[in-house]
């Protein structure tokens, strides 16, 4: 890959061209060689904007907590960690932790020694990536080509976007105004950002991270602007940055002054991420690096314009559903989420959403999901435009799962789930599945039936389990026969039950990897009262275990 670079003549052999600025830095000489080979220098015609999101992971975590009403305090050092080969490592930090000296990439145990009050939570890497992809699509408001910036492995919880804003900045009133708007819009989302625009992807990346905020770099001043930046701005691997620093090449200007052939010899076999010469070429525009934007996801929406304002959208819905399903079928998609919006004559918009458990494009079914819910739309003085959109779609190819003319079982069930969830709320219908835990209330996980069923991971306990589980367990007043054994009688809900027969104890220890340090073990007994009702009761802790006062008794389940 580097063979062509090796053939270049020595930089000192040719004079600098006259059209370059008078203060041209030595690195321009590398570019000036190209006419000697009979090729025109690539015009620096593109305008690439890079946005650095320095605290993307941490801010997303903070927003998630704030949504639950547990806004984390700013002044307490907080870090997110990921699993490393030798224990957890720091992934992202907040400002307080950074001031205390906690740095991304270091091991959690070391940082705890440095900053004992540091709080740790686990980072959600897949969630961060999905959020960045959504943000990429959201950023299409400024230009049609946006992509998540994956050209350099980001340090820790930082992320970046890159977009080709050539020719779209004038719509926002110029590049400076556009960068200001980007920063404002992102901060309104709770994301701190620093954008920069330059003629190449590499230069924009460097300016967004290592230059004052909202830097702009005109094409003719590219070499001047990047020269004082550190070599880390070249998107090199950390070991190569260290190597260059040991060689005395601290800044990009220093590196560019080195004869090209020497660099080519030294790094001829290095891959792109470790090759300073290739990275420098990318930055200066001698090596093409276009922004490869992902395609827009397909959008499905239909609308119906009404001649005069009406109050009730019900009559228009079947036709809209049919039209939408026609579009979905033609593209091979099915809807997972539907939104009906009405545009009122007074300018307000109100909408109602419904979701499906599996992708569907059956117009009758989709129409029935809105049964009884359109009353919740506030029509005001009437509306004259109705839209039906499918904001979330999935691939749904026509499949035949059975040979007889029966319908697929799963489809019927999914439709039932949709109808129940649409009317009673998605949280009301849930599906328990076995989970790997021996604590009874954790041995099954309850997930919303709308989500895909998880594969069962639990095991069946050997001892009998009750048909019903009380959540939370209810406290009992007991009368002991012997302090170590089951009670002789107990009072539950103001009724006295005499223990006629019992089986147990079955001892269940707390899960030390999940429970708080003070959690006590439980001794479960299966007891039968005087008229034959069978209960599952437990004593929390044992007398003298040093973990609290005298152990209490609870009723946890009822046997059939």
């Amino acid at each position: 890959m580097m063979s062509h670079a090796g053939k270049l003549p020595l930089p000192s052999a040719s004079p600098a061209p006259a059209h370059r600025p008078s203060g041209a830095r030595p690195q321009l000489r590398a570019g000036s060689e190209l006419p000697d080979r009979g090729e025109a220098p690539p015009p620096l015609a593109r305008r690439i904007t890079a946005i650095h999101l320095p605290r993307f992971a941490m801010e997303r975590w903070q927003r998630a907590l704030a949504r639950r009403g547990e806004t984390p305090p700013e002044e307490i050092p907080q870090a997110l960690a990921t699993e490393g080969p030798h224990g957890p490592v720091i992934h992202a930090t907040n400002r307080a932790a950074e001031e205390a000296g906690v740095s991304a990439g270091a091991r959690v145990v070391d940082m705890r020694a440095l900053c004992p009050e540091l709080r740790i939570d686990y980072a959600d890497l897949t969630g961060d990536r999905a959020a960045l992809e959504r943000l990429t699509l959201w950023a299409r408001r400024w230009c049609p080509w946006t992509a998540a910036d994956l050209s350099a492995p980001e340090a820790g919880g930082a992320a970046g976007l890159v977009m080709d804003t050539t020719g779209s900045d004038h719509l926002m009133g110029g590049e400076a105004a556009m960068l200001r708007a980007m920063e404002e819009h992102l901060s309104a989302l709770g994301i701190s950002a620093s954008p920069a625009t330059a003629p190449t992807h590499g230069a924009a990346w460097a300016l967004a991270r290592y230059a004052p905020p909202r830097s702009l770099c005109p094409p003719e001043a590219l070499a001047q602007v990047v020269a004082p930046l550190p070599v880390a701005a070249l998107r090199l691997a950390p070991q190569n940055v260290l190597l260059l620093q040991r060689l005395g090449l601290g800044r990009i200007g220093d590196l560019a002054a080195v004869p090209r052939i020497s660099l080519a010899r030294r790094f001829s076999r290095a891959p792109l991420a470790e090759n300073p010469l290739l990275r420098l070429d990318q930055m200066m525009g001698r090596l093409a690096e276009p922004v490869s934007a992902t395609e827009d996801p397909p959008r499905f929406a239909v609308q119906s314009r009404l001649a005069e304002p009406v109050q009730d959208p019900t009559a228009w819905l079947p036709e809209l559903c049919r039209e939408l399903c026609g579009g979905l079928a033609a593209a091979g998609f099915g809807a997972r989420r539907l939104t009906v919006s009405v545009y009122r004559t007074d300018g307000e918009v109100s909408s109602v959403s419904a979701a499906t458990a599996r992708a569907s494009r059956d117009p009758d079914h989709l129409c029935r999901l809105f049964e009884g819910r359109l009353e919740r739309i506030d029509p005001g003085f009437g509306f004259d435009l109705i839209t039906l959109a499918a904001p979330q779609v999935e691939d749904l190819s026509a499949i035949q799962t059975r040979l007889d003319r029966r319908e697929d079982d799963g489809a019927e069930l999914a439709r039932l789930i949709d109808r129940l969830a649409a009317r009673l709320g998605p949280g009301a219908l849930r599906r328990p599945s076995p989970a790997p835990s021996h604590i009874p209330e954790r041995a099954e996980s309850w997930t919303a039936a709308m989500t895909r069923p998880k594969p069962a991971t639990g095991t069946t306990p050997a001892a009998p389990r009750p048909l019903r589980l009380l959540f939370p367990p209810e406290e009992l007043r007991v009368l002991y026969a012997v302090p170590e054994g089951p009670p002789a009688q107990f009072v539950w809900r103001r009724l006295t039950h005499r223990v006629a027969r019992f089986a147990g104890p079955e001892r269940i220890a707390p899960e030390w990897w999940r429970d708080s340090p003070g959690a006590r073990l439980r001794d479960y007994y299966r007891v039968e009262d005087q008229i034959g009702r069978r209960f599952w009761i437990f004593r929390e802790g044992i007398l003298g275990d040093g973990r609290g006062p005298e152990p209490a008794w609870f009723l946890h389940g009822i046997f059939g």
Partner: protein
Amino acid sequence: MQSAPPAPKTHTEILRDLGRPERREAQATLSEVFTETVIDAAPVGFVLARLGPVGKPILWIQDRLSRRETGRPYLAGLPEGTEILHLEVSRPLDALWAMEEGLRCPSLGAVIGEIWGDPAVLDFTATKRLALRAEAHRVPAWIIRRAATAGLSAARDRWRVKSLPALPEPDDLRAPGEPLWQAERFRSRWSRTGTWVARPQATGLILEHGLAANEAPALQQRA
């Protein structure tokens, strides 16, 4: 891709089926179970044993009071391989609506509704609708009623179930073993009424007249 669902049975076909005694027991229909004390889980065990292995998901609907007073179904305690969809509703009207919706879906193995007290909406018309729909789509429906009086209802079978002291555990005389229930069928459209001692078995439910009848050919029934 679209194909016709199985045609629901017409009322003529249902009546013709019911005219033949051997088809009666296999007929899915609506049944009600009452309990004496609300904290007794015997009706739940009775219903599950009567259903037997269904092999399909069970739609289990609880109103809020049933859920709060008697807990929720616990998967580890149910028969192996039971799959449930649990719906918690706040009004009895929603529970009845959800039962009707569920009975329309032949992919379900059964629909179980737990309704507390005597709501006005659970009247003869509502139970008649449920019974007809259960028979038409061949999905068994059970209503477990606690703190309720047995008023007017179109349920084909009506039971009253309570716990009896369990059989002794063979290895441990102090411990309760296999459960026993006293089951009274106090009203039935097609079958005999009477009182039995019921005990669950791997394949269904055994109803017998007292413990002495252990060896006699038991009236074994499966839903």
